């Protein structure tokens, strides 16, 4: 297949809808044969966390508790209503044949999308490598994210 320039997605948001957008664009991009990278930073890290409780110190543990990671726990940016919105959106998506976040993330992995985790965010939120899914390719800094973005022709910031 014809070689294409790459796609770089910065996934800052950990909201259900915005992670959905990130994985959808990444899978479509990888499906088109473009080298695709997602750089997960700050709240976006939740999308590649296993879902266990995290944190070492008091504040880190509080963040881990209040902002627990894992795809199952992501709520929409609007109409979450303490989890009811998440349930509602999941139901509506399923009824319309729209793939869930787990399926989309797996599609990204199968198509070779590279997952990078932001080192600084992990330090701040006291998230360890073991808290992330094993498919994460590397833990990197902003310079690597910029290098990948420069090598590509498409950048999304979500």
């Amino acid at each position, binding site marked *: 297949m014809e070689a294409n320039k790459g796609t770089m997605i910065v996934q800052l948001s950990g909201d259900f809808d915005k992670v959905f957008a990130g994985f*959808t664009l990444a899978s*479509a991009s990888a*499906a*088109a044969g473009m080298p695709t990278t997602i750089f997960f930073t700050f709240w976006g890290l939740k999308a590649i966390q296993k879902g266990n409780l995290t944190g070492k110190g008091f504040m880190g543990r509080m963040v881990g508790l209040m902002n627990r990671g894992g795809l199952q726990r992501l709520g929409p940016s609007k109409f979450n209503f303490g989890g009811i919105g998440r349930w509602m959106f999941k139901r509506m998506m399923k009824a319309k044949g729209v793939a869930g976040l787990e399926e989309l993330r797996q*599609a990204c992995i199968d198509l070779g999308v590279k997952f990078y985790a932001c080192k600084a965010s992990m330090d701040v939120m006291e998230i360890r490598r073991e808290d992330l899914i094993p498919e994460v390719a590397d833990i990197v800094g902003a310079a690597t994210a910029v290098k990948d973005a420069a090598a590509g022709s498409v950048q999304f910031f979500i």
Partner: protein
Amino acid sequence: MQGIKPDRVQESVGQACPMPIVNMAKNMRTMSAGQVLEIKADDEGAHADVRSWCEQTGNEFLGEENAGEYFRYFVRRKA
């Protein structure tokens, strides 16, 4: 489209964006040059997306056929 004999058929009826395309890409990766993939899909977005994907990846869009409940798209793998 009557004359086309697909080498593989992909069932994507009931699937929404981006899964028909994701599965199409996965299928095409494991097929050889010249082989034809038929995609059955009822997602309206697939109309534009199958063509766009072919255009971008350099594969050949052979055409589509209205099968009533769904559409049949035919794509040939290039090199």
